[in-house]
């Protein structure tokens, strides 16, 4: 146990070491460690937020998908409806067209019949007249009995 100036030297060394640690060692290291703690906390919070965002996005994607499916079904249904409608319309058109064609044909036939009848009538008249003429040429004067012939002709 021998005290001497070593004590003073040691005290000075100690004071310098404490000062140095206080100035250049402790603050930068603790600041850095605090910053790291903060960064880790931020990172975890960001991860949590990302997870929530993902959940929301997944939910929205599901909704969109469901909506799209529903829309597709609606479109298909509308298309089917429209197709059957078009078929019905086409049938209608075809039916009326057919009816019209039939009617046209009928009227044509009627006209033809009329025309044939007319022609036939004229032929028959002519033949009758010719026959009568031949008969009457021997018996009646053509000029005298013209009125009578005309009335007969009209009767046909």
């Amino acid at each position: 146990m021998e005290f001497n100036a070593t004590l003073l030297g040691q005290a000075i060394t100690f004071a310098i070491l404490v000062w140095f640690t206080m100035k250049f060692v402790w603050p930068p290291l603790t600041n850095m460690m605090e910053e790291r703690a903060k960064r880790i906390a931020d990172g975890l919070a960001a991860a949590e937020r990302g997870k929530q965002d993902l959940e929301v996005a997944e939910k929205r994607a599901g909704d969109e998908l469901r909506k799209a499916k529903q829309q597709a079904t609606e479109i298909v249904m509308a298309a089917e409806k429209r197709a059957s409608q078009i078929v019905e319309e086409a049938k209608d058109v075809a039916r009326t067209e057919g009816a019209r064609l039939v009617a046209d044909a009928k009227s044509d036939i009627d006209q033809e019949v009329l025309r044939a009848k007319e022609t036939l009538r004229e032929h028959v008249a002519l033949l009758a007249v010719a026959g009568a003429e031949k008969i009457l040429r021997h018996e009646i004067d053509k000029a005298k009995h013209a009125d009578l012939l005309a009335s007969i002709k009209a009767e046909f």
Partner: protein
Amino acid sequence: MASNATEYIKHHLTFWNSSHEGGFWSIHVDTFTISLLLGFVFVGIFATVARNAKVENPGRLQLFVESLIELVDTQVKEIFHAKSKVVAPLALTIFCWVFLMNAMDMLPVDLLPWVAANIGAALGHDPHHVYLRVVPSADVNATFAMSLSVMLYIIGFSIKAKGLGGWGKELLTAPFHAHNPVLALFLAPINLAFQLVELAAKPISLSLRLFGNMYAGELIFILIALLPWGAQWLLGAPWAIFHILVITLQAFVFMMLTTVYLSLAVEAH
């Protein structure tokens, strides 16, 4: 052998004094130089790490330093509740410096003295008169230098927290308190005596605890070194292993008690 052993022990327990006659103004070159070098080791490592500290991907050394800082920071925050920029760095310095000084005890007891003796001989000195004690904390000068500095911190913290008047009043009125002015006047010197004893007891207990442990440890290593070489490991190994605990514990205790004393200083009685 007996005189030889005594001489061996005496040689190991003699400081490298700057003056042959000793005296107050001489210094222990070994204690001073070795503790200074260890201080440089401490601040060198820590300042380098602090300078290159990375928030991400810290290296092994940085992690080690960080774990020490974390250890000290937790202890200080638990004990010392006031705000202070000094206490935690002070505690860290004490822990690391004392640990490094104590750790010199782990070196073979004859290694550095033998090196010193050879260097001394090469420089033309008598190797028998080259002294080197390698454990600075086994020198009362080193331990008292720290503990008296701690006492100055205690006084400084007391004055800063309570004011010079407040601290003076506390010295005279605690621990014995009286409302009667006459009785208070009578109790004042008793209180002062108690307080001064308490104040003095702190650095003395701090430094003598550390000194005693390290001196005893060193002495036992010296005694073990006197055994026949084949038997040395039998005692040397257990003692060295046990001493790993002692050197760490003593450094830790010094740090903790310093923090406790400083927290007592800023808290009102």
